[in-house]
C-alpha cells in the first residue's frame, strides 16, 4: 500500500507530508517548491506505509513537466493505494477541478481541506458534511502548519474508497459551480491589511519602491546579523576557547613537522592565525563555522521569511520585464535568490521554468554571476577591510556580467521563452515554528555539505604546497594569471582549490598580501570561472553533459575577459 499526496501547487502538500512522516521537507509560500517527488514512511494502524509527496498539479491533463510526473505516478498506482487530495479551503472551486478528475480514476480517495483556519478570516464557511455527501469520499478540514486535524485525517485514511460520483465531462465546470454553491457561503468583509499590502506590492507606482526597500532592508539585515554573529560570537569563541586548546595540541605535536602543519598549520608569531595558518583544525574549521556559517544563517533567516510570507512571486511580477531581456520570465528571480545562498539549490530550482532554453540560460548566468553566501562572506571579510566601495565593485561587476550574458544568451540560444503564468498566493504571516525548522534544515544541509569539502580543500592546499605543485602550475599558467589578470603566480593555487570550495580559495589569497585591485580581480574571477564541485555535479545532472560543456566554455571565456578588463580599467 502507498499513499499519494496530490493537489494543486502551493496547497501545502509538503506541510502535510512533514506532519504525517515527521520528515523535514522544505515548504514555502509559492507554487513549485517541490519539483521532485519525495518519499517517506508513515505509521498507519500499526503498519509502515509509504507516503509520496507528489509535485503540485492543477489538472490530470498535464501542461508541464512537474504535472507530467504527477500523472505518471497516479497511473502507476496499484489497487490498495490511496490518494490524499489536499485542497485549498479558500479556493474550493479551482481545487475541485482536480478533485473531480481524481475521483473519476476510481482510486480510494480522502479529501483534506487545508488552510481551514484561513476560511474564517476570509468570511468563507464550508459545510463539510454536505461536501462529503456530494463527493462520496471522506472530507477532513485540516491546518497542516499547526497540525490541527491531522489525527482525524490519519483516522479517516482507512475509510478511503473510490467515489461513486458521476458527472458529464462537458458539464464539469457547471458541476463544480453547483457543488461550490451548495456547500459554501461567503459573507462580505473588508480588505485586510495584508491584502492591501499585497495589492500595493504589485502595482508599479508602489510596487517598485516596495521591491527596492525590501531588497535593501534584506541586504542590510543579512550584513548586520552576519557581522554581529562573527564579531561577537564566532571570533571570540574561536580565539578565546579554541585557540588555547589548539596551542596545547601544537605543543604536543612538537610545534612543527608535516603532521603538525597538516593539523594545526603554521603558527604566526607563535599564535594561531585562522586566516593564514591553514591547518585542518584551525583554518579548516574556522572558514565554514566561524566565517561562513553566520552569513549562511543570516541569509536563510531573511530568505525563508520572504518565502513563507509570499513575497517572491510578487517580486517575480515586478522584475518580469527585465527578465524577459535575458530570455527568462519573472519567476527566474527565485533560482537567482536561492543561488545567493548556495548555487546548488539555485540550479535545482531552475526546474520551475518550463523550457530547456530557460533552464540553460538561467543555470549558466546563475553559476557565473550569482556568488554563493560562502564566497560572499569571505570576500566581504577580506575586501571589506579596504572599504565597502571595493566590495561594491565586485557585486556591481558580477551584476553587469549576469545582465550582459543573459542578454547575449537570449540572442544566441535558439527558440523563444514563454511568458510568466503563475498563481500568486496570499501573503501569510509565517509561523515561528515552521520558519525556524526550515532555517534549521538549511543550516544542517550547509554544514553537512560544506565542512567535509572545506577540510578536503585545506588538505589539498597543504599537499599542493608540500609537493611544490602550486609553483609548477603557477609557472605554466603565468602568462594568463600574471599578464592577463595581473595576479601573482601563487594565486593559481586559489583557482585550483576553487574547484572544490570557493570560500577556501578566497582564504588562500590572505597570505599572499594582494593589493585591493588584485583582490577585486581575484574575487570576481573566482566567482565566475567555474562552479565548485557540488554545483558542477548538479549542473551536469540538470543540463546534461553537452550543455554543461557549453556552459563551462562560457564561464572560462567570460571570466578571462572580465578579469582582463578589470586589470586594465582599475587603478
Amino acid at each position, binding site marked *: 500500500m502507498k499513499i499519494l499526496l496530490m493537489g494543486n501547487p502551493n496547497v501545502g502538500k509538503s506541510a502535510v507530508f512533514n506532519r504525517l512522516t515527521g520528515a523535514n521537507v522544505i515548504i514555502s509560500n509559492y507554487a513549485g517548491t517541490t519539483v521532485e517527488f519525495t518519499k517517506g514512511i508513515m505509521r498507519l494502524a500499526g503498519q509502515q506505509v509509504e507516503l509520496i509527496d507528489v509535485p503540485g498539479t*492543477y*489538472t490530470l*491533463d498535464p*501542461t508541464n513537466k512537474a504535472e507530467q510526473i504527477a500523472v505518471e505516478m497516479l497511473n502507476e498506482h496499484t489497487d490498495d493505494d490511496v490518494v490524499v487530495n489536499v485542497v485549498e479551503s*479558500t*479556493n474550493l*472551486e*479551482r481545487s475541485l*477541478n482536480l478533485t473531480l478528475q481524481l475521483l473519476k480514476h476510481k482510486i480510494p480517495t480522502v479529501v483534506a481541506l487545508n488552510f481551514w483556519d484561513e476560511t474564517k478570516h*476570509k468570511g*468563507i464557511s464550508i459545510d463539510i458534511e454536505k461536501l462529503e455527501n456530494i463527493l462520496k469520499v471522506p472530507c477532513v478540514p485540516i491546518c497542516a502548519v499547526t497540525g490541527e486535524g491531522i489525527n482525524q485525517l490519519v483516522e479517516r485514511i482507512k475509510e478511503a474508497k473510490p467515489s461513486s460520483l458521476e458527472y458529464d465531462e462537458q458539464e464539469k*465546470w457547471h458541476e463544480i459551480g453547483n457543488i461550490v454553491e451548495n456547500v459554501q457561503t461567503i459573507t462580505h468583509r473588508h480588505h485586510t491589511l495584508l491584502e492591501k499590502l499585497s*495589492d500595493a506590492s*504589485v*502595482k*508599479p507606482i508602489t*510596487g517598485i519602491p516596495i521591491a527596492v526597500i525590501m531588497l535593501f532592508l534584506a541586504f542590510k539585515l543579512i550584513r548586520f546579523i552576519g557581522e554581529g554573529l562573527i564579531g561577537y560570537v564566532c571570533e571570540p569563541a574561536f580565539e578565546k576557547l579554541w585557540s588555547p586548546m589548539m596551542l596545547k595540541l601544537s605543543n604536543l605535536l612538537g610545534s612543527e613537522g608535516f603532521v603538525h602543519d597538516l593539523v594545526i598549520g603554521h603558527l604566526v608569531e607563535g599564535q594561531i592565525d585562522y586566516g593564514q595558518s591553514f591547518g585542518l583544525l584551525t583554518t579548516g574549521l574556522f572558514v565554514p563555522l566561524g566565517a561562513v556559517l553566520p552569513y549562511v544563517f543570516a541569509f536563510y533567516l531573511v530568505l525563508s521569511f520572504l518565502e513563507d510570507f509570499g513575497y517572491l*512571486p510578487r517580486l*517575480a*511580477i*515586478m522584475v*518580469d*520585464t527585465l527578465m524577459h531581456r535575458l530570455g527568462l*520570465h*519573472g519567476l527566474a528571480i527565485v533560482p537567482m535568490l536561492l543561488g545567493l545562498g548556495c548555487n546548488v539549490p539555485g540550479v535545482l530550482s531552475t526546474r520551475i521554468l518550463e523550457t530547456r532554453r530557460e533552464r540553460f540560460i538561467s543555470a549558466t548566468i546563475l553559476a557565473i554571476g550569482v556568488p554563493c553566501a560562502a564566497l560572499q562572506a569571505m570576500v566581504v571579510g577580506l575586501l571589506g577591510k579596504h572599504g565597502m566601495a571595493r566590495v561594491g565593485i565586485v557585486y556591481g561587476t558580477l551584476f553587469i556580467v549576469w545582465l550582459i550574458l543573459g542578454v547575449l544568451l537570449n540572442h544566441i540560444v535558439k527558440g523563444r521563452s*514563454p*511568458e*510568466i*503564468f*503563475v*498563481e*500568486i*498566493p*496570499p501573503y501569510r504571516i509565517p509561523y515561528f515554528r515552521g520558519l525556524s525548522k526550515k532555517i534549521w534544515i538549511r543550516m544542517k544541509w550547509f554544514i553537512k555539505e560544506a565542512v567535509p569539502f572545506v577540510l578536503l580543500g585545506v588538505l589539498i592546499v597543504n599537499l599542493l604546497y608540500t609537493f611544490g605543485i602550486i609553483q609548477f602550475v603557477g609557472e605554466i599558467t603565468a602568462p594568463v594569471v600574471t599578464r592577463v589578470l595581473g595576479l601573482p603566480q601563487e594565486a593559481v593555487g586559489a583557482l585550483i582549490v576553487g574547484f572544490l570550495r570557493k570560500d577556501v580559495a578566497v582564504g588562500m589569497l590572505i597570505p599572499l598580501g594582494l593589493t585591493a585591485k588584485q583582490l577585486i580581480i581575484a574575487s570576481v574571477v573566482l566567482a565566475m570561472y567555474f562552479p565548485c564541485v557540488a554545483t558542477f555535479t548538479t549542473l551536469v545532472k540538470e543540463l546534461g553533459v553537452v550543455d554543461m560543456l557549453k556552459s563551462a566554455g562560457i564561464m572560462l571565456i567570460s571570466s578571462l575577459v572580465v578579469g582582463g578588463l578589470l586589470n586594465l580599467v582599475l587603478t
Partner: protein
Amino acid sequence: MGNTIGKRISLARMRAGQKGKIVRVSGGHGLARRFEALGIRQGQEIKKISDQWMRGPVLLQHGNSQVALGFGMASKVLVEITGENK
C-alpha cells in the same frame, strides 16, 4: 466612467480595478487548457488587480485566487466590462 460597462476589450487593455466577465479565450487549445487549469475560462467573473509598464505581466483575481500572466497571454482573453472599482 459608466460608459465603459458592457464594452468588450482584451484583458491586457483593461484598466486596473475594472471588473468583467470572460467572453472568449483565443490562441489555441493548448493555451485554453493551461488557462482553464488556473480558472481562466469563458463565463468567469474576474477583476484586474494590476498591470506593469512596458507591456509587463497582468494580475487578475477570481474568487480568492490571483493569477499573474504575461501581456501576450492577457491579449488573448476577451473580457466584457461589468463594473469599475475604485
